[in-house]
């Protein structure tokens, strides 16, 4: 049986300060909750392709797609890595993304 593809989101780091960014409607936002969720893998790939514009114009680096699940309107990344990346470290309160989650 073919594996069901989870929805995806697109992320990057801002070049000048490293801030974690999420793709939303052709641009970037700071919070996971404000990011765009792609149910269709083709749409996700298209967003990744479009985002290369910002790689080329040197505003972001390290773009990639990652899997999420959405329940009751709340986005939760599938992998622990992306949960931590979205919220900041679990061991201190200094995560700069925390206020955006």
């Amino acid at each position, binding site marked *: 049986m073919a594996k069901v593809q989870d929805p995806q989101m697109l992320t990057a780091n801002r*070049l000048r*300060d490293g801030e974690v960014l999420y793709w939303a409607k052709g641009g970037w936002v700071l919070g996971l909750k404000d990011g765009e969720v792609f149910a269709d893998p083709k749409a996700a790939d298209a967003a990744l392709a479009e985002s290369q514009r910002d*790689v080329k114009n040197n505003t972001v*680096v390290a773009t990639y797609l990652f899997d999420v699940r959405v329940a009751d309107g709340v986005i939760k990344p599938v*992998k*622990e*890595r992306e949960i*931590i990346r979205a919220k900041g*470290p679990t061991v201190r309160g*200094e995560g700069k993304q925390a206020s955006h989650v």
Partner: protein
Amino acid sequence: MYRYDEFDAKFVAERVAQFRGQVERRLAGAITEDEFKPLRLMNGLYLQLHAYMLRIAVPYGTLSSKQLRKLAHIARVYDKGFGHFTTRTNLQFNWIKLVDVPDILSELASVEMHCIQTSGNCIRNVTADQFAGATPEEIEDPRPLAEIIRQWSSLHPEFVFLARKFKIAVGATEHDRAALLYHDMAVDIVRNAEGQVGYKVVAGGGMGRTPYIAQTMSEFVEREDILAYLEAVLRVYNQDSRRDNKHKQRIKILINAIGVEEMRRRVDREFAEIKRTGSLQLPAEELARITAYFAPPQFEALPDNMPFGDKAFEDWKKTNVARHRAPGYAIATISLKTVGQIPGDASADQMDMIADLVDEYSLGEVRVSHEQNLVLPHVRQRDLPAIFSRLQALDLAAPNSGLITDIIACPGLDYCDLANARSIPIAQDIAKKFADIGRQQEIGELKIKISGCINACGHHHAGHIGILGVDKKGVEFYQLQLGGSGAEDASIGDIMGPGFGEHEIANAVERVVNHYLAVRKDGERFLDTYRRVGMEPFKNVAYQEQMYAAHTG
């Protein structure tokens, strides 16, 4: 301490200016990320999970109070008010902005510091025994040689683009506090049968995916030949190592592929050639010039008179105070492992206040250990109560050096882009479980080391109890390893079996420790008991909950 000469200062200033230009060109789009990445890595700048991380070199773990204050200042102004001391005795800042890095490097240069050789496939920052120059055990202070190796290796044209990184450590005591045998290459200062001081050189140690204990390359290298010999080892490695497979590029793989005898033969051939040209002889006057920077401070003539205090002070003295070479003095370890804290972290305020302590009580110098603690190398015994009291106020007086809560932990998945699992919360859970100091003392020496991935920055292979975080379908699991050691009796820990869940691993560790307490013989450390009884009994108790569940489920 070593002080920059004119050449050092000019070299570092030029590197700062060079990187400032590189950052400007990157931000302006004149160079791509692919072009920029190796340049930033050569200056210790990584892009991690949340932000840029800047790794600052602390050569052979020695810092002045002025340098420590500068690190506190950088933490406060450019980061989030804290830094993390690593198992390479470096300091990492986790929340650095690329645009600030040239200014940070400039600030560092003003106190004779930089980030060169903290990343990339070069000879990395040289480490040494944190008790160097203070312990009565050593043959001589290993730091002059470490400094000479640093100068020789800095931007060495032949070794700037090695197949992989190359780590060197220097020691000078029978008791190895610098994990020499887990280094790509290490120099142990020794005395031969004739009483002459020289260098034993080992190579091929390492952790990571394929751990190995270093093997002896030469039992005794004469003083003036040491750079020639080290260069010979590096040259053979550089010429003969595999560059086609990133997992097989370290010197440990080369030595174990061709055999140590063949490696020695190749090194001896290069060594003879380098000696023939005579270009790398270490002049006695240069060795003396460098050694003079590390001349022992003027110690007061004091009698040995260790003060006594309340139970808290006595507990701390028992584990965190070591014998000094000068009568009336002591070496004091500042534990960065207060139960519940992040191993190796220090806040800007703590750094500033430690710098004050260093000035008042330790002749201006502090050390970083590979076990992620700080050391006051030269304190008067009579000042120990005052130092302890000040450390208590900073929450840095944990009496646990070498005990079960003195845990090494890498930053793990909380910060690191390479990690598969978190390390810090596991260290905190275990430390809380064993927080009772009486229980810690009853257990005795027990080194727990935790890595969040196979790269082993947390030295899990060398832990008496090692813990490796792994990712299973996006969920963190933790493998136990027993029987490792990073000391002179170095060994690689044995893998117990399947991993434990995040909420189970601390309990499994506790069951293992309780079993040790039940079966140990008089005077046995955990490591000794493990070596005597083997894995099986520990495995049985570690997995007992799962076995119970399997039988009753």
